[in-house]
């Protein structure tokens, strides 16, 4: 019996020595769930690797959890099961859901409590505005982009258009399209990816038009959509008319329509600036970018709003871990990382310092397409163009897009379709307001 217990003691000592002697065990793990696949996923992993190598106390573990909605629902489920990741990447439309959840550790508070100095003033306003409440930043901007116009220079040349002058107004888009089709340079003029995001969520602030009441949802929960007004009907009505003529070709939701541009079927594509990196590799023709088209007077030219995603910190982890979370956040916001991230992926740099450094290096002169998206964000945002703060926005976007499809299919007029979208959207907003009654 004595021999037995002595043997166990020896074993325990050995195990203890082994545990203490292994330095890897001493590192605190920080779990980070994201939705970055393919090339973007590789870039994300590289960023994480750089952070892990830059210090020895923390180990960030990045994990691709699927698409944006899947990451969000996965994180929520994990939180409800009391096993959440430290950091989760949530797309723009999930912002209000996160803000009101009571599950988050706001980034400004995290940095303050962990005593890590951040110069918030250096962050560019149209990016932080989307994710701030009462002037405080709640989540760390990670991958931000805005929609721009991509055009096929080869097709433009063939149609006798100036390949260095992308159409700036919708009128010019229509005219250029008709010339391109007439010249047989392409089958259709233009297509649009992420239809609700490019054609409504961004087109409204771009023209300084309100998307929803309560300053697009920033000042209250009893928000109603305003997209069925005169501007919305005019814009979507024109798209519908063009769809009928073949000038515009609706190509589905998310990024699916891109294939129409890549294959040369459509000469223009309105899509996120984040695909620049991908297009550089895959496009077999000369191409360029222009700003999101504008309707011109009487509408004011405002700013586009950012899309993409931010990193949210979730509650429920060991207090000591949050120091590492804060240091990782600080790391990715530093100019060096910001510049690397922008050049590698095409997402926007989010601090003035990073942008200035890129300018000094003539980056935007050499890569004008990288400047287009930033140029759309230079105006000082108005209440109409700060961003959108709508609850259950995922569902609202879905409702809007299905009505856009009804309009483009000719089943409904622009007015009827947008009104139906508003009715559905308002019901969803009402549901969210009721579920989040204080």
């Amino acid at each position, binding site marked *: 019996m004595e021999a037995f217990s002595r043997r166990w003691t020896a074993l325990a000592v050995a195990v203890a020595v082994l545990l203490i002697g292994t330095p890897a065990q001493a590192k605190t793990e920080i779990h980070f769930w994201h939705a970055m*696949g393919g090339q973007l996923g590789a870039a994300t992993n590289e960023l994480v690797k750089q952070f892990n190598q830059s210090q020895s106390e923390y180990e960030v573990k990045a*994990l*691709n*959890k*699927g698409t944006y909605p*899947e990451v969000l629902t*996965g994180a929520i*489920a*994990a939180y*409800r*099961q009391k096993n959440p990741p430290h950091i989760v990447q949530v797309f723009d439309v999930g912002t209000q859901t996160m803000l009101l959840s009571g599950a988050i550790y706001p980034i400004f508070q995290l940095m303050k409590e962990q005593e890590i100095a951040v110069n918030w003033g250096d962050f560019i306003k149209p990016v932080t505005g989307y994710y701030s409440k009462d002037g405080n930043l709640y989540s760390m901007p990670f991958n931000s982009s805005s929609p721009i116009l991509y055009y096929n220079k080869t097709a433009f040349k063939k149609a006798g258009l100036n390949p260095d002058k992308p159409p700036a107004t919708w009128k010019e888009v229509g005219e250029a399209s008709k010339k391109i089709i007439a010249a047989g340079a392409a089958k259709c003029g233009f297509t649009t990816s992420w239809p609700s995001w490019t054609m409504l969520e961004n087109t409204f602030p771009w023209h300084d038009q309100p998307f929803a009441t309560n300053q697009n949802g920033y000042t209250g929960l009893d928000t109603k959509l305003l997209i069925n007004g005169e501007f919305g009907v005019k814009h979507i009505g024109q798209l519908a008319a063009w769809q009928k003529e073949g000038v515009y070709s609706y190509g589905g939701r*998310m*990024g*699916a329509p*891109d*294939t129409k541009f*890549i*294959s040369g079927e459509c000469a223009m594509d309105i899509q996120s600036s984040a*695909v620049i*990196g*991908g*297009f550089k*590799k*895959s496009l077999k023709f000369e191409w360029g970018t222009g700003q999101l088209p504008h309707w011109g007077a009487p509408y004011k030219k405002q700013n586009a709003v950012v899309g993409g995603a931010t990193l949210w910190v979730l509650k429920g982890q060991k207090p000591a871990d949050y120091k590492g979370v804060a240091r990782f956040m600080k790391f990715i916001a530093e100019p060096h990382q910001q510049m690397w991230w922008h050049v590698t992926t095409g997402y926007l740099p989010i601090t003035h310092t990073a942008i200035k450094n890129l300018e000094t290096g003539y980056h935007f002169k050499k890569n004008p397409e990288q400047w287009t998206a930033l140029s759309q964000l230079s105006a000082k945002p108005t209440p109409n163009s700060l961003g959108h703060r709508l609850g259950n926005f995922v569902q609202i976007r879905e409702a809007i897009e299905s009505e856009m499809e009804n309009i483009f299919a000719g089943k409904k007029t622009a007015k009827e379709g947008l009104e139906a979208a508003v009715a559905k959207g308002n019901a969803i907003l009402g549901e969210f307001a009721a579920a989040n009654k204080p």
Partner: protein
Amino acid sequence: MSADGALTASARVEALPRIAEAPRRAPVDWGAVAVHALLLLCVAVIAFPLYYAFVISTQTVEEVIARPPMLSPSGHMFENYVEAWTRAHMARLLWNSAIVAVVSAVGKIAISVLSAFAIVYFDFRGKAVAFWMIFVTLMLPVEVRIMSTYEVIGDLGWLNSYAGLTVPLMASATATFLFRQFYLTVPNELVEAAQLDGVGPLRFLWSFLLPLSWANIAALFVVLFIYGWNQYLWPLMITNTEAMRVVVIGLQDLIPRTGTHIPEWNVMMAAAMMALLPPVAVILFMQRWFVKGLIESEK
């Protein structure tokens, strides 16, 4: 009939079903030819999508989008399959699918054999309650109670695990129902004789009942294997790492949605071919039992 006298016995057996038509037999039976032609047309229509998918999986991206469409295989099969295999982590996906299909099928058959045995061969208090508790689930697929089942799995801590992927699929009474029906057709004399010989219930199940049930078990296995292999909504919801995904869902990630390049339909189809091969092979190899099972289960 004596005209067939020269034929060997075995050939005569084969010819039997046609004997009735023999007197009217013309040099060519045009009716039969027409029927064959129509049947072949049906087969062709049914086979075309799969054939076309295979053709696509052997082409380059340029060939895939060429007009007019190329309807014959090209020479790039190998690289497409290798690409699909590595990019989608096919080995892992297929392994997971195989586990889900086999474990859920075997598990369901096992618990069903036992419960059907208890219900048919024992009298016990609460038998009626147990019977109805099981059979009320007969037609209620996992889809209609999906959100709550998800919560339950979460409470059990089974999210993203093989247990979570397989055990809930066993909560269906179809198999139990089939075994009960089958046991009821087993002659009463068998169990009486066994009891006279002093054979206990478990021994009876193992040595008498199971050997009789092999055909049913095999047929059920095919159906349940396919059911498990082709599960979609459930694994989509409860898995959240790539390492736990099954092949039918893994394919989904290859569907071009956010395309910054021409969608690689060829790679997509190569992956689809690999994903559909195992269940189709199971059907073809176990066809005899499967068809028998279909007919038995329909009784």
